[in-house]
């Protein structure tokens, strides 16, 4: 310590240098929750392909991707909504409404393209309704979307009653089911890939995305930093409604069916996949590549188990257990660590008798 050394204004001190990152690239990429899910996908794929006969075919891949498409479409905005600290449980009912409206209008003589546009508009409207109730009225999204889940499903069933519509233009049906020639990759993957890129850019490379993370992790800080918290959330619910209605249109052509009870329970598959992919249910954390891996992992597992003639209730049990494990794992690890630690430092009441003097 030198007596002459004085504390001077910070700006005139020699300027500090900062490394861009605290850990090397491989650690930042490999030691993440997202990468763990990707590894799980690869392991499940290898095990399934090598142990299940006739699993490793282009046909399996095709069906897997076709079935995953609606889940993936809805998972994109759901990821953003969960990161912003909200939730949207009404997505499957929105798929249902979109599915029913498309069939109803087409059966009523409306041109299919116009009917599709109307479906997307309906999706935007239901998203706006959710967004209005959450951001303007200020209700919790969990309560709002449980309500609209029932409301939209009721409307969907109400429009068609117990009937179903099964005639749709062959062109769109084959477009929804066709693969690229000589591969197991469906044409619809082009649309999915484009949307994945759009959402990845939106979440990870725009000021809007930065605002989503800040809002989910610390709402007050976001508000004090000029993030338009309410507007951000409203836009996310709009996107959720829009993508859910798009998924509903796809669903209609993929299965050639329009029924009031189509896609019931799909919201739980989507949320399970998103959480499995490393998005925090508390908001503020997550990455889109993890979510895609989560969606693929759930789809792959279900497909592999179905191939092995496992019944659907067992498949549900496996999916549920996987989700629980992925949510509980971080907490369990922390708990185990503290248990191991306290072994070496027993309670004071056990050591009290040991006197020093």
């Amino acid at each position, binding site marked *: 310590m030198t007596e002459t050394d004085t*504390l001077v204004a910070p700006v005139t001190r020699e300027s500090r240098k900062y490394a861009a990152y605290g850990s090397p690239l491989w650690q930042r990429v490999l030691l993440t929750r997202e990468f763990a899910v990707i590894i799980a996908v690869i392991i499940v794929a290898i095990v399934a392909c090598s142990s299940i006969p006739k699993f490793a075919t282009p046909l399996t891949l095709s069906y897997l991707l076709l079935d995953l498409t609606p889940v993936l479409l809805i998972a994109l905005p759901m990821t953003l909504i969960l990161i912003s600290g909200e939730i949207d449980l009404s997505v499957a009912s929105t798929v249902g409404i979109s599915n029913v409206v498309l069939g109803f209008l087409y059966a009523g003589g409306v041109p299919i393209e116009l009917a599709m546009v109307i479906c997307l508009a309906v999706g935007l409207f239901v998203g706006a309704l959710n967004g209005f109730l959450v951001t303007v009225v200020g209700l919790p999204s969990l309560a709002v979307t449980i309500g609209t889940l029932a409301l939209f499903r009721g409307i969907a069933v109400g429009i068609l009653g117990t009937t179903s519509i099964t005639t749709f233009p062959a062109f769109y049906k084959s477009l929804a089911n066709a693969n690229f020639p000589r591969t197991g990759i469906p044409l619809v993957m082009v649309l999915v890939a484009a949307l994945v890129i759009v959402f990845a850019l939106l979440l990870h490379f725009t*000021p809007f995305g930065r605002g989503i993370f800040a809002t989910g992790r610390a709402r007050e800080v976001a508000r004090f930093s000029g993030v338009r918290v309410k507007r951000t959330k409203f836009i996310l619910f709009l996107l959720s409604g829009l993508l859910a209605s798009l998924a509903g249109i796809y669903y209609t052509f993929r299965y050639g069916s329009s029924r009031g009870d189509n896609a019931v329970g799909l919201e739980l598959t989507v949320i399970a996949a998103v959480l499995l992919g490393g998005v925090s249910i508390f908001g503020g954390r997550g990455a889109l590549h993890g979510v895609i891996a989560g969606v693929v992992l759930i789809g792959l597992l279900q497909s592999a188990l179905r191939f092995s003639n496992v019944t659907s209730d067992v498949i549900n049990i496996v999916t549920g257990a996987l989700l629980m494990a992925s949510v509980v794992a971080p907490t369990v690890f922390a708990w185990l660590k503290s248990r191991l630690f306290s072994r070496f*430092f027993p309670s004071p009441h056990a050591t009290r008798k040991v006197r020093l003097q």
Partner: protein
Amino acid sequence: MVMSTASMRAEAGDVVLELRGVSKSFGPVQALRDGELVLRAGSIHALMGENGAGKSTIVKIIAGLYQRDSGEFVLGGETVHFRSTADSKQSGIAVIYQEPTLFPDLSVTENIFMGRHLLKSFGRIDRAAMRGHVRRLFQRLGVDIDPDRPAEGLSIADQQIIEIAKAISLEARILIMDEPTAALSEVEASRLFAVARSLRDEGRAILFISHRFDEVYDLCDTITVMRDGAYISTDRIEATTVAGIVRKMVGRDVDSLYPKQTVPIGDVVLKVEKLTSTGQFHDISFEVRAGEIVGLAGLVGAGRSEVARAIFGIDSYESGTVTLEGRVVPRLNTVAAMQLGIALVPEDRRQQGIVLPFGLARNSTLAIKSSLARFGFITNRSENRSAADWLARLSVKANALDTSTATLSGGNQQKVVLAKWLATNPTLLIVDEPTRGIDVGTKADVHALLSKLAGEGLAIIMISSELPEVLGMADRILVMREGHMTADIPRSEATAETVMFSATHERRSAV
């Protein structure tokens, strides 16, 4: 009064708690090495040091939150190993934190007896006995709080008193007060000190952590100084001087805590006219000029932060106008306020200033994310470049730009918040309690920075509950009391007396 454990009975002057050579590491970071601390009954012991000096680590080891890696922890003559905070409480240790955590919907009495209600026959809760007990406690402490009122809405000062009452009813022999006065006004702090003195006279040992020298010299009899995670010295308070303590804390001399330069005052930047928000503030009018530091003084709850939040567009107001350089600042529109050139460094940095788990770069560019974007896209690279510039100018201590701000000391966190707002290149900077809970070295840094910025023509409003800070830094001091502006005092006439008078009395007729 019945004591919980016989071993804790101590005469004044007896050593009740001793730490010898205590160390604690978190991974590669050594937060504490060879920590020493001796607490005696009937003594108030000050623990001072810059942020990151290891004070909080010591407190957390004593409180049972952390387990020490090595060293001796002797309590009442016995070595102890606390595994949890419950162990520490059972051994007669109570920690009063800066911001108490009471159950807001429960009554004061229920909070004090949480988890150990007094019972009548058939397990019914004996409310009358509990209430009587609390009344007697409050009488002893000389405070006037209704035992039946809910904890919600109590001032932080009253909440601390309740934590202290709880500690006393638990027969705590050792009280640790971790920066208890950081959020208190001077009146509230002096009441707290009266309570602390009477507890000392009852023979309890008190560890008092504070960054404020006047408090330490007023209250404490012994002082331990720490620096960089290590023990430096323990002395009787009479044998020390402020300059000597500062030198030990910082490791060198500090020129001046309030390096205010006189700079030319420019044109009016901010003009606030008749701003009114029912129940918050009433008829507030003032101007701030370029190069001017305007201090906003008053007791906690006088409405100072509320005025700042209204100007910045966080909260709405009923009437009045705000103009910045002749342009009207719209109501309830933070984005517009920022675009016009207003920046607000909020009072609660952990709740309002930074997103804690996020990295340095993400945090310090949050307010300028839109202007950083090229063609609508923002990248880590552009954030890092902008962040590194500002963090270096404020010499924030950290290795990497993705270091979580949760791992930084309070002073460094505050610098990140300042960097974040200075990056917006404001014309008006509002700082609300800019040095609350930060160490003396960083404090001098922040003051020097504010003074330099004013010299460059920035208009600054500085809200502070610390009178010496306002007196030392402001060109002009506005005083608020219960939502009203009671005085506008130029630097030359400002003294602790004139400011405190206006903070506690209604506006005199002719000002």
